[in-house]
């Protein structure tokens, strides 16, 4: 049995880590079942360096892929009578057998370029990371335009999810969105454990008497990270007499700095300019906010360990592992209140504090309160891995393979190719 796992966009970071962890877990599950499974990882052409994909298993191969439109006659030729001319169909091509040697396709975040609906040439599962565009439509640009290609890609995503055999999600709220926003059937949505969690090394403990004079703001440069409200809240916090510096880390966060914008740059995203202008016109924030951009793992550990608290300010996403990392390093967490983050904190029993992300006064008060409480040492930090965590992961991946096998048996259109034939 061969399974194709697709990463249709040149994502790095969390998504790349998740897809690699997924392949590993899939192979492990096959080992446990005693099945002969190999995995083909599809990535965009000319995107990743050789060492970026770290998996070293002979049963895993990597193919560079392009996505091309499918015509009606091609569909007829393949004997698939599912043509619905509602959007153009697309399919992957690797220059060879075009993944038709796989009995199952697993699509990670089905955002296809060019925009198109995935042709049902093989049964497929979709991993839906989140549906941020439902909650923060500005993520595709401040001025919302239905003709923007991003929205066409979104429509194709939703319809692709609707046609999937299974929709894999890692939080219940994203599962709700898969049903309520994408229109997937509820019985097709599968809640998976957070399989890509890497428990970071705790590193050297923070020396006693360290000043812990800053709050660590972990972010990136996209609009759903709520920078404008966060800066307004910081301004209010400093007006209230807040005494902590704020250290901002994360990919591309330097681009939000007014200093970065002083020099002529090739690309200046309008959103970055707005945030930088907002910071520039706020004296207190300008002076107390430090930009460190993306930092190494060691530096990250030391920054989290040395912070008074970690501030996670996001309008909406699939939750962040920063909660677990902060708890592991003994730093309290102040997070914006949204269901995914609540779920993660509940799952790992992390005593985080929450604030409404768009209420500036509330946010500022929460920051101030956090500063006071952490200063007085009133906040305890702890976490607990859920019981049978590893079993849950093993069981989920085992069930994925089993459900695929049963689906393969019942399907008329195709058969599970015998490994010897492929």
């Amino acid at each position: 049995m061969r399974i194709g796992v697709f990463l249709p966009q040149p994502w790095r970071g969390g998504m790349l880590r998740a897809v690699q962890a997924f392949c590993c877990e899939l192979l492990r599950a096959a080992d446990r079942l005693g099945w002969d499974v190999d995995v083909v990882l599809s990535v965009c052409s000319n995107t990743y360096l050789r060492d970026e994909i770290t998996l070293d298993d002979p049963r895993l191969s990597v193919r560079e892929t392009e996505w091309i439109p499918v015509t009606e006659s091609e569909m007829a030729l393949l004997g698939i009578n599912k043509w619905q001319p509602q959007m153009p169909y697309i399919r992957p091509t690797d220059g060879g057998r075009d993944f038709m040697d796989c009995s199952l396709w697993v699509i990670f975040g089905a955002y296809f370029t060019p925009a198109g609906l995935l042709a049902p040439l093989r049964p497929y599962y979709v991993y839906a990371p989140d549906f941020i565009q439902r909650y923060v439509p500005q993520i595709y640009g401040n001025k919302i335009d239905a003709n923007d290609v991003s929205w066409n890609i979104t429509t194709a995503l939703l319809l692709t999810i609707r046609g999937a055999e299974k929709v894999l999600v890692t939080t219940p709220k994203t599962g709700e969105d898969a049903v309520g926003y994408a229109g997937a059937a509820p019985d097709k949505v599968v809640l998976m454990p957070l399989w890509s969690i890497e428990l970071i090394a705790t590193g050297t403990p923070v020396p006693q008497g360290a000043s812990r004079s800053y709050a660590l703001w972990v972010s990136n440069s996209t609009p759903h990270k709520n920078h404008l409200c966060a800066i307004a809240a910081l301004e209010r916090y400093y007006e209230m007499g807040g005494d902590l510096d704020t250290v901002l880390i994360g990919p591309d966060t330097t681009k939000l700095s007014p200093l970065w914008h002083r020099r002529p740059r090739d690309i200046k995203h309008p959103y970055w300019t707005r945030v930088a202008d907002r910071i520039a016109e706020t004296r207190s924030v300008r002076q107390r906010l430090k930009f460190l951009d993306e930092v190494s793992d060691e530096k990250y550990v030391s920054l989290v360990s040395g912070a008074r608290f970690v501030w996670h300010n996001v309008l909406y996403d699939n939750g962040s592992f920063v909660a677990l990392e902060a708890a592991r390093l003994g730093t309290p967490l102040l997070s914006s209140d949204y269901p995914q983050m609540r779920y993660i904190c509940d799952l790992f029993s992390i005593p985080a504090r929450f604030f409404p992300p768009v209420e500036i006064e509330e946010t500022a008060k929460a920051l101030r309160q956090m500063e006071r409480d952490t200063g007085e040492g009133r906040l305890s930090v702890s976490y607990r891995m859920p019981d049978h965590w590893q079993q849950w992961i093993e069981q989920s991946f085992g069930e994925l393979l089993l459900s695929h096998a049963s689906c393969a048996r019942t399907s008329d259109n195709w058969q599970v190719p015998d490994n010897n034939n492929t």
Partner: protein
Amino acid sequence: MNLVRPPSRSLGIVAHIGIWIELPPGATLLGEGIGQLVRLIVENACGRDIKCTFFAPFWLHNTMDRYLEDFEPTARKLVRVQYTRRLVPLLWRFSGHATARRPRKRKLRPTWLNWRPIARRMAQLFVPQAPPTAMLTALVALPAILIFSPLIAASLGFVWLRRRLARLFSKGRLLLRHVRNRYGRIAYELIREDEYERLVRTANRRTDIDCWFVPNPGWSTAAKLRGPKVCLFPDFVFAEHWTGFAAQDIANVRERFRALAQSNPYYVCFSHYVMEAHARRCFGIPQSRLSLIHHAPILYEAPVDSDARKALLRYLAERFTQEKAFTAIEQNHIYPYLRSLDLSNLRYIFVSTQLRPYKNVFRLAQAVERLIRYHHVDIKLVLTGTLDFVSLEPELAKFIQTNALWFDILSIPRVPKHVHALLYRFAAITVHPSFFEGGFPFVFGESVGLGTPCLLARNAATSEVLSTSELRSFTFDPYLSPRQLAIVLMQSMERRESMLVEQTAMLKRMSVRTWQEVTSEYLSLFATAATEARNPRSRYVERYRVVTPNKGAA
């Protein structure tokens, strides 16, 4: 001339009702509250062997057919539609109201006529750098060109002529469009007046009609009908809520109401408030001409769940594959999204109303946006009003477009009865946020009867029917801000089950009144009107008098 009456047409008996329909092109009774009311009365009247004939202008041919499809099969046998007997006037197409023609497919030009690449190839042969073989070919080709030169010249001339003509036709089309834009309205008005004149003449020739039923008090051409008339008076909404409408439109509607009132018909109101505040005070209609007939609750038959789900899926797939999209947002996003959407899996708030300024749907949409984006509630809003993404009117369409809500606020307008019932069936809750209603909203019975609780806005009509405790439990202030309304919606959805139990009990009490009874009251009014018309001595003396708004209010 004394007409010999058939035996059934004795005093107090109505055997045949004529229903006057006066709608502009594109409008329909399907999905309208009045349309439902007329359907129920006609169905029940037909159940008593009373014939009903609709009189409608020719442009409603298709819409009336679709409307009648919703009627009970037994009733449909006794219902007829009378149009004027004539061909569609040629000017109708010019008026811009005819169905738009499909754009003709452009014919592909045969490749041999595409002379440009041929000419380019020939020119290449004669350039000095051309290789010797090319020169040789040119030497052979040159005599051939000379021999066939008249033919080549003729074909080039033909191409030139064709282009000139195409340009000329294109200019002609533009001119025609310009003229149509400017004078089409005048043409439409001319045809409209002529059509109604003809329809009135046709109607007045029908001696078998006992009584005329006019479902809208603004359909003023009905004043020319000679027989007795019974007219519905749902409300004069501008007396309550005039903002959002053009002043000239309000004046025109008022004039039409007055014109019909001058012919002294009987009027039926659905609430005491409208009878007093609108009919009497605004229009000075005498009390003796006014009747108050409350609605009975509309109860749909509960569909079987598995069939219902499939039926709704099939309807959406067919409808949004065939429906013509006018904008990119519909073509690229909304229609593909709706085509395979299984609403039975979704949690949605259903609003069954047209989108008029006083219906307050915009505020509800804002509240739903807040529910989704601030409270992270997984919910959708499904409307039956038409959203116009071309003109972005009403403002709700613009709101949806500028806030990327086209997957969360959906409009499924002009649905047949069985689909309407299914939309109620699968909703989390039904909301009717209107500032004003002429009668107790139908949505209450329709929704609760199908197992979905209903939240109503507090207004004169609901206050007249519901008790104080019911008002507190099932209604909300329509002036609530979107922020407050979002909280009310959340709370209502949380107590969905208890609300449904209470409302079902209430509906049971309300269901004591049936549509049979309502129809009896209507028929008795028709009979009164018919009797009065046949017996001049009993003709009522109190006539309509024109009342100006200020005096009327005083």
